[in-house]
């Protein structure tokens, strides 16, 4: 039995909590529970207005053609069904686009110095290509393979044909020289799941509907009231935006 805890979901508000908690060492504040963290005024209630345009849904990296391929692929990886929305509705392809535009796409925090040698699988990725380059090649190859096999681009195929293409990549049946087909598929799959479930601030998990699919409550301050409960406690999710502005 699920139970909701709306209205009592926050046993301790952060504000109250920080005021009451004594992170103090002989009068010295430890860990800096700064006043800047504490909101002094509640924001005005939102006026009832038509839903504003989602300015986040515009491409930073992909071409529209690349986007169509990725969007279609994410939807096969995590399809819409009777449980609720799939990756497309949740904006996973926008998430991936935005990620490739930044540090992650450039492998900015990875060790990318040579020399480059092929290694054992247990030694991890050893290529010189960065994630955005791998996506460029992988997307192109998905269209090439689709065209050779079915005479259409990936996003024009029927769902079961798209699945067959993805499986061919996953199983390395597609032979590529520049990148590993299965390595690309793995990255596509993993980033799709990130796009479904990362905080909406990154462009996916639209309206937190990814979290709702599995009753994940997002960012809550405290679960002291829930932790011992025998019943499943279902609650309305909260995002980091709610946390900053709410």
């Amino acid at each position: 039995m699920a139970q909701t805890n709306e209205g009592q979901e926050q046993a301790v508000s952060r504000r109250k909590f920080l005021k009451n908690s004594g992170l103090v060492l002989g009068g010295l504040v430890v860990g800096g529970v700064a006043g800047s963290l504490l909101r002094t005024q509640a924001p005005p209630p939102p006026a009832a207005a038509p839903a504003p345009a989602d300015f986040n849904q515009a491409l930073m990296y992909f071409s529209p053609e690349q986007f169509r391929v990725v969007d279609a692929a994410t939807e096969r990886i995590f399809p819409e069904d009777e449980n609720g929305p799939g990756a497309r509705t949740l904006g996973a392809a926008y998430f991936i686009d935005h990620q490739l535009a930044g540090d992650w796409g450039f492998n900015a925090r990875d060790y990318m110095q040579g020399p480059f040698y092929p290694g054992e699988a247990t030694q991890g990725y050893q290529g010189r290509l960065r994630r955005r380059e791998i996506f460029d090649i992988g997307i192109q190859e998905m269209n090439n393979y689709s065209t050779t096999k079915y005479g259409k681009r990936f996003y024009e195929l029927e769902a079961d044909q798209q699945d067959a293409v993805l499986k061919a990549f996953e199983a390395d049946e597609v032979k590529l020289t520049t990148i590993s087909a299965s390595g690309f598929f793995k990255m596509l799959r993993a980033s799709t799941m990130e796009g479904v479930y990362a905080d909406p601030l990154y462009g996916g998990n639209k309206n937190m509907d990814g979290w709702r699919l599995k009753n994940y409550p997002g960012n809550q301050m405290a679960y002291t009231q829930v932790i011992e409960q025998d019943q499943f406690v279902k609650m309305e999710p909260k995002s980091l935006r709610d946390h900053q502005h709410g």
Partner: protein
Amino acid sequence: MPRRLPKVDVVIVGVGWGGGIIASELTKQGMTVVGLERGKERKTEDYFMVHDELRYALRYELMQDLSKETITFRSNTRIRALPMRSYGSFLLGTGLGGAGVHWNGQTFRFLPYDFEIRSKTIERYGEKKIPEGMTIQDWGITYDQLEPYYDRFEKLCGISGEENPLAGKRSSPYPTPPMKQTPAMKMFAEAAKKLKLHPYMMPSANLSQQYTNPDGVSRAACQYCGYCERFGCEYGAKADPVVTVIPVAKKTGKFEIRTHSHVRRILHTGNKATGVLYTDVTTGEEFEQPADIVVLTSYVFNNARLLLLSKLGRPYDPATGRGVIGKNYAYQVIRGGATGFFEDKEFNLYAGAGSLGMTLDDYNGDNFDHSDLKFLHGASISLSQTGQRPIANNPVPSGTPNWGKEYKAASLKYFNRALGVGAQGASMPFRHHFLDLDPTYRDVFGDPLMRITFDFEEQDRQLAAFTADKCGQILKEMGATHIDVRRELGPYDITPYQSTHNTGGVIMGASPDTSAVNNYLQMWDVENLFVVGASAFPHNSGYNPTDTVGALAYRAAEGIAKYAKGNGGLLV
């Protein structure tokens, strides 16, 4: 030419748990200490937006930037070591507080057996029980000798826990009562008791209640927020160096912390260290910091690496077994576990804390008879509820496809219906597992990276299969409707996360022939150089390491103070 700075009593390389404890203990006694930390300053306000799985858990916000420095890895000396280009197997801390900021806080003591592992194994099973190439050795200290220091670290943190019936004796109870129990933990405990095992609440550095430690630092109770491991605690509830030892050291006025200060060499003349050479990474300027005593607290890899780069101590040679720096690198056997699926139960798994769990040690250390087993030591077995976050946790029963409609349905269904019982297996050292300098790959300064040569052995495979079965039995008793048991360990693979419990390389012991440091972590070959951390462990036990790291840091601080007051020389 590097700019030479005024001399201080002690310079510390790296300010995590090890560095923080040494700094607070020595400054309280009036010594002047400079702490050099390559990363940035950290404070509790940094964590206002911390409940962000992508940024912290998957993009490694708080960890070392691998583009500047990483390690290289090979499974044996016949293949070429290659760099760990992105994170996987373990995560390296950086910045003030080090990995202590983003640990879970599971705070276990090692077993009395651990410290005398070689003698006790021979005593019970004979020397033949130790397989060819396994280089287990006694630690040069006993559990009873280390007990008072464990006690100090646990009081510093305020560890919440209850007596473990199968562990070494405690001089005092845990400073705070155990954490709250979740339904899943109760099920584990009941099942374990039915199987005649001895479950106990996991000792936790996430506080069960508000606590004031002996230094006068007060911290609030844990809120079970579910964003603990890989995250900083926005409440200051999780014991970490930034909210405990570092402010205590600073308050003395004797501790100067310099962040963004990357130490590259230990300077020395003859067999005495004279200070360190470091680069201010914000300006590129080089400095020489002279000191009477140098303390390395830069984690396992850089502790060993700085010694090798500075040509201090005798490098280990796996061909002859001689030399000590780099010897006995060990890790952990973490993959032998099981997952249970419960058709008709739903758990509040999004809630949790880093060290919320139930553990048993019936199959750990030498708590069970190994006569008919083909491995030594064992594992702690736990059910932990650390807060299940949605990207990384999508358990599905074996046989389910990895993506698509069926996968989606199963991953949604089981998100709150799957429980893991895991084993944290000990890792025995072998003659051919070691650390040395990589001949090819370099860090951003042009210095050679640390090279790891390591693989799982038959010992580890046997252990993993054994513990996986035990985990499966417990889940069965718990009433799981489907159980997946992971018996196959496979080769050591650097890509999946296992644990950041790397050990060895600068090991302690009773003799300079077989160890690098004595039981005060003082280097045998360089009496004013102390090397603190899990680098000192001659093997790794079936637990998380930090209680033992903390205890040894207190012991080392005592040794350093003694050394500074005395006339020099070795303390042992």
